């Protein structure tokens, strides 16, 4: 499963990198095709054109970068915030731990998309803003995983042995606990990658996307909705499939990794 996921994700990334060179037309240039637009797939435009007369093939080839950037950045933000807080809070213990857990729990209980929408609506357009608003949604899941792991590992004999030999708190955290937490963080991160991509698409769909002058699958889907009554299936189908593939790739990697890490059912 992991392999299939990796193959999908890697080929998507290669496609995005090569996209600008291979695409037959400028993805943002309008009216590259003669007027009756949107036009169905033809030999000149294999995936058809949209309302602005832009070539869908070029847009599909180049359109993934925004989504990937947003997902990457948001996972990065989650790492930067969620992991240290999750490591330190149970170590500080007492009231600090309680407060952090309560705050994180109330973020966690919030409907994710609604929270992201609120923050994105306040911060305005842009890749970084979008990534931040998605990160806020997923930080609690990192915090929870890291915290629960730290709580168990803290009591294990080898950590106690380290403490008994005089290792300081910081050393124990970084050298004894962190390496054991990393695998589960990686699983959470890959699963969150898929979620972040879908959330980014959702944000674009409610009108909080990055903008019109950059090719983006989410944007194409959103605009394609207005063309649906005319039966222009090609405008939404291809970008949609690309999003599904990208999210699917990350989901598969996450699934495969978590099965590797706790092989409960495969006896």
């Amino acid at each position, binding site marked *: 499963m992991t392999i299939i996921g990796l193959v999908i994700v890697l080929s998507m990334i290669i496609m995005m990198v090569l996209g600008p060179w291979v695409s037959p037309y400028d993805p943002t240039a309008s009216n590259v095709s003669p007027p009756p637009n949107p036009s169905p797939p033809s030999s000149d435009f294999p995936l058809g054109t949209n309302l602005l007369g832009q070539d869908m093939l070029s847009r599909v080839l180049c359109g993934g970068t925004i989504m990937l950037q947003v997902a990457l950045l948001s996972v990065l933000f989650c790492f930067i915030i969620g992991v240290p807080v999750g490591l330190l809070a149970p170590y500080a213990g007492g009231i600090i731990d309680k407060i952090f857990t*309560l*705050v994180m*729990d*109330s*973020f966690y*209980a*919030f*409907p*994710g*998309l*609604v*929270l992201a*929408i*609120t*923050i994105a*609506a*306040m*911060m*305005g357009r842009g890749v970084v803003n979008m990534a931040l608003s998605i990160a806020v949604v997923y930080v609690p899941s990192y915090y929870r995983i890291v915290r629960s792991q730290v709580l168990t590992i803290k009591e294990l004999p080898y950590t106690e042995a380290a403490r008994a030999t005089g290792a300081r708190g910081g050393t124990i955290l970084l050298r004894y606990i962190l390496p054991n937490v990393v695998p589960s963080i990686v699983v959470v991160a890959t699963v969150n990658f*898929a979620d972040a991509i*879908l959330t980014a*698409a*959702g944000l674009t*769909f*409610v*009108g*909080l996307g990055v903008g019109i002058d950059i090719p983006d699958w989410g944007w194409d*889907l959103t605009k*394609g*909705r207005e063309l*649906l*009554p005319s*039966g222009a*299936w090609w405008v*939404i*189908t291809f970008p*949609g499939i690309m*999003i*599904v593939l990208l*999210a*699917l790739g990350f*989901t*598969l990697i996450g*699934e495969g990794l978590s099965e590797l890490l706790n092989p409960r*059912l495969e006896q």
Partner: protein
Amino acid sequence: MGLRSYIVARVLLMIPMIFLLLSIVFLIIRVMPGDPVLLHFERKASEEAMAELRHVLGLDKPLYVQYFEYLAGLLRGDLGRSMAPGHHSISQQIFSAFPATLELALFSTLISVGVGILLGVRASQSYNSLQDHSIRAFGIVVYAIPIFFLGMIFQLIFAINLHWLPANGRFPPFLPEPSGLILYLSKPAGGFAQVFMWSLPAGFVSWAICSVALKRKRVKFWLKGFLISLLVLLVGWIVYAYLAWHFMCLGVLHISTGLLTIDSLIEGSPLKFVESLRYLFLPSLTLGLVLSGVFIRLTRSNMLETLRLDFVTAAKARGLKETAVVYGYAFRNSFLPILTMMGLQFAILLGGAILTERTFSWPGLGSYLVDRITFRDYTAIQGAVVLFGILVAIVNLMVDILYAYLDPRIRF
């Protein structure tokens, strides 16, 4: 800990949680950089116009005063006023949009849990076969599809190409919306027919619920159901006659739920019922399918564990049918995790409902929220978001209590 003290403790725990949630929303919208009024006008309005809007909405007061007014308003169920011209009450707007979302949420939960259980059980029965693998693949793929993409594909196929189902909206524009049950109390004869129509099914349903709750199943179930509904009919008529006699000229008694399917049923209009189902079908199928992935996986893994246990083998050895063993014995043990998951999924369900509503122009809370975002109406956005948060908190509370009721181990 007894059930009662568990409930009390759980409710008390919810208070700081909701308080935090409200503070977070306030923090994001009012305190964080980005002045809502400035954003609302996109910096294109005069200083006076902005000052006036601030004054009308009370945004010119100090932040802590705004914060307390916001909390106090919420206690009264007041979510503030909209930034849009007219400054309508947000609570009222949300109140009228809420039933549509509730109806969508209920039906899609039904679909997602139903599909999830059926396919999950199927997969666990045929472990490691082609069927198992394809069901698992289905579960994973469905999880990776953006809801609105699936919705648009359904619209393309079933509405635009095949013309089987409507693509947008909640009810046909050429029909008056079902208004629920209206009892004209001054006209006993007409009212009697209406009472007759709804009390039979109502009586039967209530009997069914009671008998399931009392765990006395299938003992002359149908006969008893019929007798009980006759009894309810009688009681209903007596209550009605009493009301009619008392309020001879007071006009109408209006019973409506806002859920169009139920309203058309109690109105006694099969046509409206079928129409509202047709409009409901595609949106709830979309949302339900996307959410079903989690339930498939959960049911499958739980069932795989349960099917290995001795009591299942014992039941099989006694010669019970496969379905009886699977659903009557093994599945019962997988029900609690599914219930928990339903609670956890509720937040995701609401998020999905926003996108689904936008796709199908379904006039619920999600459409309201998106609409307000387009108009940069920040006070209304705040109201809708607060409501979403509180809804999730309440549903989680209910699921926890139900869970504690069903599984006493939780309370200790």
